[in-house]
């Protein structure tokens, strides 16, 4: 295997100089933000039309994904003609317990539709010249009508409100990083400047106030040009960010139960933690761009102590095949560029060259590689063409996947693993605890909310630019209330006259025929 290497000077330019904010770079970020906002707006509009206003024939999730992706690509093709542009996050609709990468292809055996009461997270993202903007927003399908009859209640509402406030407090803290003297006294016990552990503390605190937990896999991280955490396998140099892991929660529980951490065998080992705890002590500096991707789940339905974890879904269920079980092949793939292998099949060689050319470092779906993509007028004929062409690409995919040149992005569902079952005698064998089996048999959590946004700390104007997710949460009410003077003080810093200036990026209006601009 020949390792690829980059010269030190080139690496310096690519990793540092190209990330320095100036007018042009900010404009690229803003344009990317506008496109994601427009895409999100279009997605919400489509769902409203289909499920709420009933003014449109229902479209399956795969069709919706394809239409939104087409819109994004069509919009990208009109801006910055000379730059490298692509989708960075294929549109996915994560329904209820599904937490990531649910984006069915047209040729999937099942056709998915939403139903009333579903919590849906829309995820999408684009990049222009490597400067990218990702967005996730959670909505709820209410009974048909112009407006919801009443507020959303219960665990779902808790998680949505908690997530909204968590995101807001992170934005406030990021804004205060420019003026650390305005930090409340209470917050200064974590340090006089805004750092990772301060952010993590407040996020966890707010989530707990609403009887929620942050789902493992949530991340607040600095993004750089072409490096926005699109590939989980990548071990990034100079990574700055906070991640949530199961092992943290487990240690918390053990401490609460009064046991000694060392005496009890932990089922979520340290080896799953890639980045050491010390990494969270990073300091947020102005001129950096942060991506906030928070997933929060309510544990209202469970009265016992347990850990929130995720299970990866695949097509195979093994011996215990249940009829109504959710199973699905992953549809989103990402090229792992460090891998090198000489492919044997002609179809796979063709496919990999296409991938390298168009979606080299960002995730993609097979339908992006067809000739009819992006669709011009969303007609059924175009969809059928794409459907027939996907099959050709699938032919080569197997060999590529087998040699890890391309990795599938896992479709995950949230599970609640009661700690009692971990301690149970049956679960412990001579080989240790079979975690996968435990997770498989535990219950799913449907009360979740995912919000993500990209925030630019603009050191040129001393302001924040929130590139995406300027939508208010759906109409909901929670039984919990947040009473904390420090947190309130932090929130107030966003509104006050002398507080943090937050600029927002607005979506473009969309016409039905996708006539843009």
């Amino acid at each position: 295997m020949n390792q690829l290497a980059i010269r030190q000077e080139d690496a310096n330019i690519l990793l540092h100089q190209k990330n320095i904010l100036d007018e042009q770079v900010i404009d690229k970020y803003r344009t990317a933000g506008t496109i994601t906002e427009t895409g999100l707006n279009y997605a919400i509009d489509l769902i409203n039309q289909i499920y709420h206003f009933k003014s449109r024939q229902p479209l399956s999730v795969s069709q919706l994904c394809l239409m939104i992706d087409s819109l994004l690509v069509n919009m990208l093709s009109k801006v910055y003609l000379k730059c490298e542009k692509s989708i960075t996050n294929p549109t996915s609709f994560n329904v209820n317990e599904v937490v990531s990468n649910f984006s069915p292809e047209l040729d999937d055996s099942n056709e998915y539709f939403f139903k009333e009461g579903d919590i849906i997270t829309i995820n999408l993202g684009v990049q222009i010249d490597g400067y990218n903007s990702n967005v996730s927003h959670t909505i709820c399908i209410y009974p048909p009508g112009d407006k919801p009859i009443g507020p959303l209640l219960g665990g779902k509402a808790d998680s949505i409100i908690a997530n909204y406030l968590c995101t807001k407090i992170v934005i406030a803290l990021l804004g205060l990083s420019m003026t650390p003297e305005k930090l409340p006294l209470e917050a200064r016990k974590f340090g006089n400047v805004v750092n990772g552990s301060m952010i993590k503390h407040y996020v966890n605190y707010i989530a707990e106030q609403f009887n929620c937990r942050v789902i493992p896999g949530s991340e607040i991280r600095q993004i750089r040009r072409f490096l926005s955490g699109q590939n989980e396998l990548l071990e990034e140099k100079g990574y700055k960010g906070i991640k949530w892991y199961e092992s943290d929660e487990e240690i918390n529980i053990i401490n609460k139960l009064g046991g000694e951490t060392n005496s009890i065998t932990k089922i979520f080992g340290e080896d799953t933690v890639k980045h050491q705890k010390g990494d969270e002590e990073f300091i947020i500096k102005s001129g950096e761009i942060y991506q906030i991707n928070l997933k929060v789940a309510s544990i209202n339905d469970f009265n016992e102590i347990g850990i929130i974890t995720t299970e990866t879904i695949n097509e195979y269920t093994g011996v215990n095949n249940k009829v109504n079980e959710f199973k699905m092949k992953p549809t989103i793939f990402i090229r792992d560029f460090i891998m090198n292998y000489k492919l044997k099949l002609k179809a796979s060689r063709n496919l990999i060259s296409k991938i390298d050319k168009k979606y080299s470092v960002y995730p993609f779906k097979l339908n992006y590689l067809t000739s009819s993509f992006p669709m011009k007028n969303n007609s059924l004929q175009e969809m059928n063409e794409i459907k027939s062409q996907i099959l050709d690409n699938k032919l080569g995919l197997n060999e590529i996947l087998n040699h890890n040149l391309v990795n599938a992005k896992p479709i995950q569902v949230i599970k609640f693993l009661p700690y009692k079952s971990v301690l149970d005698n049956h679960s412990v064998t001579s080989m240790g605890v079979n975690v996968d089996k435990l997770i498989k048999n535990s219950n799913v959590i449907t009360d979740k909310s995912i919000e993500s946004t990209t925030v630019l700390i603009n050191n040129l104007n001393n302001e924040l630019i929130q590139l995406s997710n300027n939508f208010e949460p759906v109409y909901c009410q929670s039984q919990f209330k947040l009473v904390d003077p420090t947190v309130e003080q932090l929130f107030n810093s966003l509104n006050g006259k002398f507080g943090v200036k937050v600029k927002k990026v607005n979506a473009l209006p969309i016409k039905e025929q996708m006539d843009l601009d």
Partner: protein
Amino acid sequence: MAFTCNSCGLAFPDAANQREHMKSDWHRYNLKRRVAQLPPIDEDSFVSKVASLKIEGDEKTSKKDEKRRQKEAILEQKRKILETARKAMQQRKDDEIMKGTLDETIDSGDLEFQKEVEKAQQAEQVNEPPQLTPEQQQELLIQEKLKNKVDLPETTCLFCSHKENADFPTVDDNILHMFSKHGLYVPEQKYLVNKTGLVKYLGEKIGFGNVCLCCNYQGKNIEAVREHMKIKRHMRIPYESEDEKLEISEFYDFTTSYDANEDDEEGEWEDIEGEDGEVDEDEDDIPSDGAIIQNGHELILPSGRVLGHRSLQRYYRQNLPPERELTEAQGTVIAAENRNLLTVRDKKAHEQQKRDWKSEIRRAKYYDKKFSKNMNNQEHYRDQLLQ
């Protein structure tokens, strides 16, 4: 003293004097002597030497005068001899008229006189040739050649002797004859525009220059050249090197072979090929196709194909995988990559695993043994033959 001259063995009070000395002829002479490993001479002897050399030079000029005087003397003698001869002849005529017969004695005297005249002439000739310049000599040669010149019209065979009467009605017939009989091949007939001119030129070369078409042989006359060409089979037009091609290029027109837009490059190509004639062509028709661009050790044909030099074939024949060109995105990701794909094996863990494998096999064998022992166990002996 700092200012010295080693070759002359001198010392000077200052640099200016030294420099002046270095420029002098005396110093130069001593330098030459030193190179020839001779001891230096002092200034006086050098001056005397120069003076003696000057005298010698004067003597030389006087020698010239002497020669001229001698010459004049010879001429004077000649004139005298001629005068005496005339007188003698007149006397003889008178005697003949008187006697009517020629005396042998007079004849012998006449012979002597003739010898004298010849001698004088010879002396004249000996003096004359050094005065001829090379140009004059050439002129003489050309005149001589012009005398020997044989006109070969374009309808006459270049190689058949005039006795065979190889005349043809047209040039084409002539060329056909020369091809079939003598094997003369006219190259690039497709682009040959001036056939008559070419044959005439070759005819001139043989008939006038008496030069072989192929080698540098120059015969005394046309027959000699023809004989040479026949014996050596030199009856062909050489068309390999650039000079040879250029020699007859005026009768050709290659413009139809190249595209209109590549006309400029053609000229360039001609020049370059002159410098590097070793370029290998894989296809036969390349020399006629003018529009070839040379790029280092490669030739680029009008079709876009690239010809490589034969000496580099081992490099061309390699089957290297195509180089991966990284886009900026890929470059950034790889620059940020911290994964190490070379996994270092933990020695202790590996040994432990080996031990585990071994014990597993041992256990399996043990169970196998036990199982087969139980299966074959017979409580009472049974003779197979007595069944």
